[in-house]
């Protein structure tokens, strides 16, 4: 069975933006099609449309040449389109077989009552796994399995619907090297059966190993498809980035020469090792690295969110080996975590309470504080951040993503930090809010406050930073100056193994 999945002039508009702009693509069965693009290029929107999770504004989807309408994930299943997401959707307390057949367990009649037919459950689950040429005990509890095996269960669950299309959304992001190999073998087996495989990834180095064709989207538009055999990393990167006019930071920004934060031989088992760098006064220092490079772990360790087990941090003339967030705060370090909602803000509390969160001790005298005192602090911060907030007493959850991020930054400004660690501060916020976050970093720089800036958006690093460190496989592999290289060159340096 050779299948085909096509789109004709698919367009998806969101209020204010066009996520997909007349995209026409075609994926044939029996091949692995890589779908790539930068963050926000539109690839996940396209996948969601195929999965029935999002409806296109206009355009058609065709399966085997027949137009189909996918109003819900259920419709997509019915059309034989299955998706394996990077977050697992398994129930850890149930067996492999139950997970594969969840909600569709075969029943039989015993004495007039309908009960689960366990032999049939296990037999059917085993048949699915056999079809994938995988040996896995169907009676084992999923929670006891490793990540790679769980991924296999996830795929088996998708396969049990006998799909003609399977989409993989960043399936390797949680896997180790050898597990990735197993997964690739499995994907090849599926492709050999004539199934259409759409494979979304950030990792360019995976493409030659798994993909037959590579399809690139950029800014919501279809850029092109190349056979993997003919494509070079350079041509792919060029397709991904196009011609970019690189913006530059304001000319008056100067990094000082006085070291503020020195990191020596820092390591955390299995996450990063032997990290050395110095951050100077007023400097905006970027860390470029892909997902899984250890950049987030490094930042968390620097703030004491997670302990490190080797090396030291020198700050304010003190060498620190045992860190906690409250100690690092006292030493003048601030941290805006990657996950705003879960790690940075108390969603049910007011904007005022959140803005005061990090500086409760400063606002109070001998432990006592008043509303009025908190308000005056809040008013000062709101003015400094240029946040439009009708009412700071409303829960912070009522603010837009960009304004929430400013609240996160704002709560630290009142602690008078020396260094702010920014982990993906621009994730999920609009262009204008991004520029405002950059403005804040630059203003801080002018006041002599240093920033350490981690971002997946390499253009941002090139625009904002004085220097950029490149992080790969848990350690720093070089340093570049913005202005000396283009974004695709930086991307290639982050991706490739030298």
């Amino acid at each position, binding site marked *: 069975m050779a299948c085909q999945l096509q789109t004709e002039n698919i367009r998806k508009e969101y209020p204010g933006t066009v996520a997909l702009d007349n995209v026409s693509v075609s994926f044939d069965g029996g091949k692995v099609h890589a779908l790539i693009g930068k963050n926000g290029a539109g690839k996940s929107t396209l996948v969601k449309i195929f999965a029935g999770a999002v409806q296109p504004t206009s355009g058609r989807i065709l399966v085997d040449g027949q137009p189909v309408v996918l109003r819900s994930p259920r419709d997509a299943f019915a059309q034989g389109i299955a998706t394996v997401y990077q977050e697992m959707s398994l129930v850890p307390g149930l067996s492999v077989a139950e997970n594969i057949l969840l909600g569709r367990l075969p029943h039989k009649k015993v004495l007039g009552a309908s009960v689960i037919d366990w032999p049939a459950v296990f037999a059917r689950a085993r048949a699915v796994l056999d079809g994938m040429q995988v040996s896995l005990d169907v009676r084992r509890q999923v929670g006891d399995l490793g990540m790679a095996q769980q991924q296999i269960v996830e795929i088996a669950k998708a396969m049990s619907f006998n799909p003609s299309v399977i989409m993989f959304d960043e399936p390797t992001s949680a896997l180790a090297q050898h597990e990735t190999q197993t997964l690739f073998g499995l994907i090849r087996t599926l492709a050999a059966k004539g199934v259409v495989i759409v494979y979304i990834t950030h990792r360019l180095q995976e493409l030659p190993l798994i993909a037959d064709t590579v399809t690139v989207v950029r800014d919501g538009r279809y850029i092109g498809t190349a056979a993997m055999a003919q494509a070079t990393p350079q041509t792919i990167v060029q397709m991904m980035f196009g011609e970019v006019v690189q913006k530059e930071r304001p000319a008056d920004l100067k990094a000082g020469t006085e070291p503020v934060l020195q990191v020596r031989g820092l390591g955390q088992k299995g996450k990063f090792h032997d990290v050395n760098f110095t951050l100077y006064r007023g400097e905006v220092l970027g860390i470029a690295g892909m997902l899984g490079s250890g950049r987030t772990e490094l930042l968390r360790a620097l703030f004491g969110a997670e302990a490190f087990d080797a090396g030291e941090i020198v700050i304010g003339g003190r060498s620190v080996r045992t860190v906690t967030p409250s100690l690092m705060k006292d030493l003048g370090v601030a941290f805006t975590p990657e996950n705003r909602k879960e790690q*940075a803000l*108390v969603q049910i509390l007011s904007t005022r309470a959140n803005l005061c969160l990090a500086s*409760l001790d400063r606002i109070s005298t001998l432990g006592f504080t008043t509303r009025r005192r908190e308000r005056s602090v809040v008013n000062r911060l709101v003015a400094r951040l240029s946040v439009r907030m009708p009412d700071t007493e409303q829960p912070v959850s009522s603010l837009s993503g960009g304004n929430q991020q400013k609240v996160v930054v704002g709560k630290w400004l009142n602690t008078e930090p020396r260094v702010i660690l920014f982990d993906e501060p621009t994730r999920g916020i609009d262009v204008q809010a991004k520029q405002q976050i950059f403005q804040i970093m630059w203003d801080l720089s002018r006041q002599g406050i240093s920033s350490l800036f981690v971002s997946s958006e390499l253009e941002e690093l090139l625009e904002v930073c004085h220097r950029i460190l490149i992080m790969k496989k848990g350690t720093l592999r070089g340093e570049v100056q913005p202005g000396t290289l283009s974004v695709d060159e930086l991307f290639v340096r982050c991706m490739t193994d030298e």
Partner: protein
Amino acid sequence: MPPLESGSRVRALLRNSVMEIVLLALCIFLAFRADGFLSMQNFLNVLRTASFRGMIALGMTMVIIAGEIDLSVGSMVAFSGCLAAWLTGYLAGPACGMSLGSAVTLSIVASVLAALGIGCITGFLRVRFEVPTFITTLAWMSVLRGSASLITKGFPLTPFPEWYNFIGGGYLLGIPFPAIIFIASFAIIQVLMSYTSFGRAVYAVGGNAEAARLSGIKVYQVKVLVMAIVAGLAALSGIMQSAQIMSGSHKTAEGWELEVISAVIIGGTSLMGGVGRVWGTLIGVVFLGVLVNGMTLMSIDEYWQPVVRGALILGAVLINLAPSSRK
């Protein structure tokens, strides 16, 4: 939360004062239907009875706002009363020969310190080994009740001097002494929760412990302290209770933990943590006190009372939830 326009301000005030209005309605109803409800003596009695549980409810409010729970407070009341009674008897007895006055004082201090220590242990197990406070305090509930029986060997201990009764049954300036302690505790905890950085931290920790930690708030301090505070308040309540009945009895305060938690929830504090008001708990405590008193005055069948109370608790919670679920 004061909104901007005055029209919606009135509406918000009404929305935030549902329980106050319900309590007022209950009082008006009882004023007409229950003989003797409106007398000063009855009012002071309700206040005294409510104070023993109310003190604990104040501490429980902090614990629940911080996202924890304490199921051992009833047992703690019994344990600390028995401990104080046994210690008094021992210290004033032939083995030590202390004067009764200093024996009582020392026993009270020792009982409260023991409770604070137990609360600290619960908090420590929570932050160090991530043992849920539900489990730890469930264990304490059993251990403390059993210890109270062991101390008393099953019979009430009565070593207390006459004047000791003042702590639980006396009046100061015409107000029951426990009520004074209750109101004082209310004032202190209200200030603690609204006007100190510690109180603000309790809300943050209960609302999102990870965000609080990553804001440099010492989450472990907050959790240990709230558990110690509620245990200490339960011990104080236990001392006052033993003074009222003039004995240490292992049977006192059975089932109090759930009554206390009910009062906190009626007061609008969320079991999910991060949301709640000390004032609301005060209303919840008075509401339950008035309700029981009213049913007794109206001579409602003793067996019906728990049924009515349970139904009203559920109703109160539904009323409290209504404004937020409408969004």
